[in-house]
């Protein structure tokens, strides 16, 4: 009803090639951003700390992997390790130069991750598909080995763990135990919005088209004058940059301290599932995927006992956990059968149907 294209005329090319050509979409996006900021003041600490912050962090990591896997078509299993590089780099930087604001270091730490990512992306010129996945798997194991074995990375800390020191922004603690979930959420949200905006500009511009060309047919792309090596390495670097920043946020603004084990192969798979479920080659899909894989189990954990208790069924925490696994697993299969292109495609179809509603075509 309200979602209509009618009456919105484009009078120039810029308006026609806008990312959100519809006025309603732009308003909707604005409302979502306002709501996200409002949530900082309305939500309780569980919602912010245990749901929203990790959701945003995983969304950012999914965007990173989506750039590589979804847009450039290079399968990677090293996401967890690249996140780790960002986290360890951020730790080293902020303990070595405590006088510089930590926000700067969060952004800079991504560059270390990007460099490592580009290095492990080198074989991508020669190997493709599953074989590349195996090469990135090597990165995962090698980097994880480094995290355990190089005590310099954790400043020779006996426990081998990273921990978030107290850091402030405008005099308010944003990191460390004294930072409230509210301030941490605001920081994470702002960083994620900024980087998403940047990613959106990247993938819709010349660079994004190069990536997509490489993905669709790299031989044809090469003949058109796109250099495969540089393009693929750029995809690895940008993707790892996002993962690195997400890793730094994960450890320092969510956990507040972590072991190397956080960046294991499971983390890589976790992010990969988000990308696949959300939709390959879609930014909004990264958010959908993160929501389905991360938030749904939490919601189920709260809703399931509430559904069962009125019927007099009291179940233990372990049964709930098993049920969560089964339901989420079944839903993943369901979504993949109904829409193999991910939730983003469902979203697109939904919008398309709304546009022509009440007519079916």
């Amino acid at each position, binding site marked *: 009803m309200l979602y209509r294209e009618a009456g919105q005329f484009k009078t120039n090319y810029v308006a026609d090639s806008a990312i959100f050509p519809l006025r309603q979409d732009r308003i909707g996006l604005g409302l979502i951003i306002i709501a996200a900021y409002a949530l900082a003041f309305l939500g*309780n*600490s*569980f919602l912010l*700390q*245990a749901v929203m912050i*990790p959701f945003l962090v995983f969304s950012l990591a999914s965007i990173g992997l989506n750039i590589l896997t979804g847009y450039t078509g290079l399968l990677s299993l090293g996401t967890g390790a690249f996140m780790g590089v960002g986290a360890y780099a951020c730790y080293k930087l902020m*303990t070595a130069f*405590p006088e510089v604001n930590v926000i700067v270091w969060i952004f800079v730490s991504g560059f270390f991750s990007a460099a490592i990512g580009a290095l492990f992306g080198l074989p991508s010129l020669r190997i493709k598909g599953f074989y590349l996945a195996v090469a990135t798997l090597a990165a995962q194991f090698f980097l994880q*080995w480094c995290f*355990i074995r190089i005590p310099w990375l954790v*400043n*020779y*800390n*006996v*426990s*081998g*763990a990273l*921990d*978030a*020191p*107290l850091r402030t922004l405008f005099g308010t603690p944003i990191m*460390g*135990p*004294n930072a409230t979930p509210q301030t941490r959420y605001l920081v994470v949200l702002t960083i994620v919005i900024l980087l998403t905006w940047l990613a959106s500009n990247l993938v819709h511009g010349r660079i994004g088209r190069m990536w997509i060309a490489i993905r669709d047919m790299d031989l044809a792309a090469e003949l058109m004058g796109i250099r495969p090596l540089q393009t693929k390495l750029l995809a690895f670097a940008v993707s790892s940059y996002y993962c690195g920043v997400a890793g730094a946020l994960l450890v320092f603004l*969510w*956990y*507040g*301290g*972590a*072991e*190397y*084990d*956080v960046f*294991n*192969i499971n983390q890589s798979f976790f992010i990969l599932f988000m990308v696949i479920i959300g939709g390959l080659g879609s930014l909004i899909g990264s958010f959908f995927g993160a929501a389905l894989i991360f938030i749904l189990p*939490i919601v189920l954990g709260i*809703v399931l*006992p*509430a*559904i069962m*208790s*009125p019927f007099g069924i009291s179940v*233990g*925490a*372990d049964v*709930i*956990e*098993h049920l969560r*696994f089964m339901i989420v697993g079944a839903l993943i299969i369901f979504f993949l059968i109904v829409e193999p292109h991910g939730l983003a495609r469902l979203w697109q179809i939904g919008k398309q149907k709304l546009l022509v509603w009440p007519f079916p075509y």
Partner: protein
Amino acid sequence: MSFRKLGLGLAAATMLAGMALPAFAQDSVYVPLFTYRTGPFAGSGTHIADGMHDYLRMLNERDGGIGGVKLVLEECETGYDTKKGVECYESVKGKNPVIVNPWSTGITLPLIPRASVDKIPILSMAYGLSASARGDIFPWVFNPPATYWDGLSMIVKYIGEKEGGLEKLKGKKIGFLHLDAAFGKEPVPLLQELAKDIGFEVALYPVAAQDMQNQSSQWLSARRDRPDYMIMWGWGSMNGAAVKEAVRSGYPMDKFYSVWWPGEDDARAGGAGAKGFKMLNWHAVGTNFPAIQDIQKHVVDKGLSKASKDKVGELLYNRGVYNSLLIAEGIAQAQKVTGKKVVTGEDVRRGMENIKLDPARLKELGLEGFTDQLVLSCSDHNGHRAAFMQEWDGTKWVKISNPIEPMTDRVKGQLEAAAKDYAEKNAGWPKRTEACDKAS
């Protein structure tokens, strides 16, 4: 349409249930139990969870709680996963828990800095950050009854005694099979220091977390190196696999020692050949204690427990009971110190610092001889208690030594360095502001 109906129904049911959820009674104490009955470590986690739950449940059923105040028990499933553990912490935080026990070093680490801010004490029983034994630096974290450094020094001491004195270890070779993670590597510096001073040789056999069940290469090297003794620092499926491999490669089992984490199932994995395998422990196994018999009577026989009857009294079950004994004692002491019935996290922190489990108190609790005495204080959050050696006789654990005191002087050095290091690395680590109780 049917989907929509279902959705509406679900939503309605949720709302109803949300309203129907009983508000926490004012005269109760909320004790969340972080457990892992699922995931790769569920094999050991389930028994620990049963033990923890059943002891506290027994107090509820038999005595109506602690000091007349009922305990509200709630399990939160972590699956030994840091993500879920932190989620559990956030979900219980709002319900005023008096203490949390993360049961995973990975979950403990992120919680340590939060404890002092949220005023919730952490009990990480013989795991977590060893440096947190220092109460003056970590007032909110407790890790009794011994650190891993204590454990290693006890094993070396025991081996030395068998040889006829520590100096007799000179020229021997000690193998150290450990999980290649912070937990397994922690004792290495101490072991190397001892090796240098006493003059024995150390061979390290790290096992990566992903290869826990496949230790053939480590045991192949062990066959080549022929260490006189083997010390194991393992967790989860690594223990069972190690015992199995040791048996297969023909390593003399009576020379094979472990820290306190293997359970019966791990030793059983080795079959008859595992006889002679030894490990440190600090509490008894079996059900021959009034309190554990009360658990059987009031909880297990009434079907209130998830444990099967034959598992009650096994090693890891009793480990869970010990954990809950500390929780219960912390609450009881908190009630005594503050004079309040319904205690808070801050009170229980004080209570933990006043724990004095001497033989008389243990007898009173129906656990005479269950464990050695444990005294915690304002500055000492660990106790550095002695543990004893026990041997697997093919069907059960048999205690074979008196309590072995740790080499306190050696451990102290490691501890001071680690605690100083932690506080230094975390510039701005808060100074302890919590007052010490006179009694401690």
